[in-house]
């Protein structure tokens, strides 16, 4: 019997690293590469497209000034409030419609063309019509944002509802789980990934749209301030204001949605 050289154990998948050092340094390295390449790109653009793209240095100064200014923080909280209000409402309304049309063929046949239409209407149209209907108070912006964002949420949730495991529906039927229990324990958990994606989407979209809303119909807020700076061609301030808000939105999403996600998807390993 030939003796075996025990030299070549099976190689294993690097994806299964559980080495924290490696993870942390990977994160760090990734961040460094990403940020430095973005900065480089930015710098090149700021030279190539002279007055339009501000230099990173100018922008940093502007960011610092903004952080110290009270009017910036006034705008900031105002916009954040608007984003949150419409994000939450759009998520709830959109998810409810998504579940309804995912579960009910009739509702889907009826609502789907309307949703497709609602998705199609350009945002400025919503905003303008909302202002003409509700006046220029907070209501108009809120309504416009909510109507513009909800259909996206519905779409995502609907696909997920339709892709659910029918086996579990049958299980619930057999054991006569009450509607409420079926909904909470079987349907919603299957939708969690989609709901999180939809939440992210709604959050990102609300912020994108709030800028347009405020630029068209609101005298205050981050969006208005960005457009104010833009009309004055102060591109560094446009960049500064946007960057601060972008970073905060990102931190918020990571912190809040990320934590929720971890908790809800614990069972997946």
């Amino acid at each position, binding site marked *: 019997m030939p003796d075996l050289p025990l030299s070549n154990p099976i190689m294993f998948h690097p994806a299964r690293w559980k080495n924290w050092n490696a993870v942390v340094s990977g994160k760090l390295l990734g961040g460094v590469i990403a940020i430095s390449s973005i900065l480089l790109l930015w710098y090149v653009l700021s030279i190539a497209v*002279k*007055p*339009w793209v501000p230099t990173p240095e100018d922008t940093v100064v502007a960011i610092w000034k903004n952080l110290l200014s009270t009017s910036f923080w006034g705008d900031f909280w105002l916009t954040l409030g608007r984003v949150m209000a419409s994000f939450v409402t759009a998520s709830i309304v959109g998810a409810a419609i998504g579940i309804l049309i995912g579960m009910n063929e009739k509702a889907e046949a009826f609502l789907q063309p309307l949703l497709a239409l609602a998705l199609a209407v350009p945002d400025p149209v919503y905003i*303008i019509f909302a*202002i*003409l209907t509700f*006046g*220029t108070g907070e209501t108009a912006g809120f309504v416009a944002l909510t109507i513009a964002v909800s259909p996206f949420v519905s779409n995502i949730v609907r696909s997920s509802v339709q892709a659910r495991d029918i086996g579990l529906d049958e299980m619930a039927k057999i054991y006569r789980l009450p509607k409420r229990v079926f909904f909470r324990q079987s349907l919603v958990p299957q939708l969690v990934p989609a709901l999180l994606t939809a939440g992210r989407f709604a959050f990102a979209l609300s912020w994108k749209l709030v800028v347009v809303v405020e630029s*068209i*119909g*609101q*005298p205050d807020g981050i969006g*208005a301030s960005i*457009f*104010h700076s833009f*009309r*004055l*061609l*102060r*591109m560094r301030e446009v960049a500064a204001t946007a960057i601060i808000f972008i970073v905060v939105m990102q931190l918020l999403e990571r912190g809040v949605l990320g934590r929720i996600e971890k908790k809800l998807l614990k069972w997946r390993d």
Partner: protein
Amino acid sequence: ADMPGVTLQAVAGSVGGVPLMIMKGEGLDKKYGFDGKFEFLPHEGVFQNFLIGKSDIAMDNDILGVAIARDEGFDVTAFYPVGNLYLGIVVPGGSEAKTPEDLKGKKVGHFGADSGTTTFIRTIVQEMYGFDVLEEYEFSQVGPAALVPLLKSGEVEAIFDFESFVSEAIVATDGHYLLQAHKDYSEFTGGFAPWITNMVAHGDWLKENPELAYAVRDAYDEAIEILESTDYEVLRKDYILEGLGITSEAVLDVLIENAKSTPYFTNDWSPEKIAAAEAFLDKLSKDGLLIENVPDGVMVTLEDYVGPRS
């Protein structure tokens, strides 16, 4: 047949574009030796359109905008005046307001605190009545066109807007000017009033095409000559109706009426007027309104800038 082309732009719906319409309608461009391409663009992106070089001459920039752009490093300069302040505060027929002071605490529509229209009205009111509209009024913001239905629906008690939307608003609400910027301010100062729009071009375009710049200026001179000599009746021509998007005969009547009381256009580019305008800008920057400092060369004369006609 082989004339050099010039692209000229103005804001859609604004009377600032009328001289361009006349140039086109009456063939003044060909007459002065250039082939005009006239573009009327929505208010939203119009300045940007010019700054990225998609048109050679903009007829719709106020000196504030030029100052701001120069300060940010754009080589653009105003080389001739165009529109007087054909703008102001409009209230509907039944309004109880007699002066801008009566609107304090009321809802007023405008299309942007950083627009030339609002800035001019704001400075003028500040100077004449001693208060800041941005603080005293409750502002609603929509585009210049949308202000008209906003006023009509009663959502706001007054609007800050420019012609021809002013005329539209007056007709739609049986309204009137509460403040006519040019008229009221020049009465107040006893002569000087800034003007709203200029002919603006990029510095290098001017230097490369001096004779074209002169030609456009000449065409403009003749266009406003036509306006004045016809007592503004030329506005009734179809190409103007279409160009401005006038919705009814009644609006046109008001538009002509308004022009008679405050001439829409000027070609007074005297050193005194330029100096007064520079002083006005200095004052704005000192008050910290919109601009921080006034760069050189916001306003030039072609003679100084590119030399006398060849």
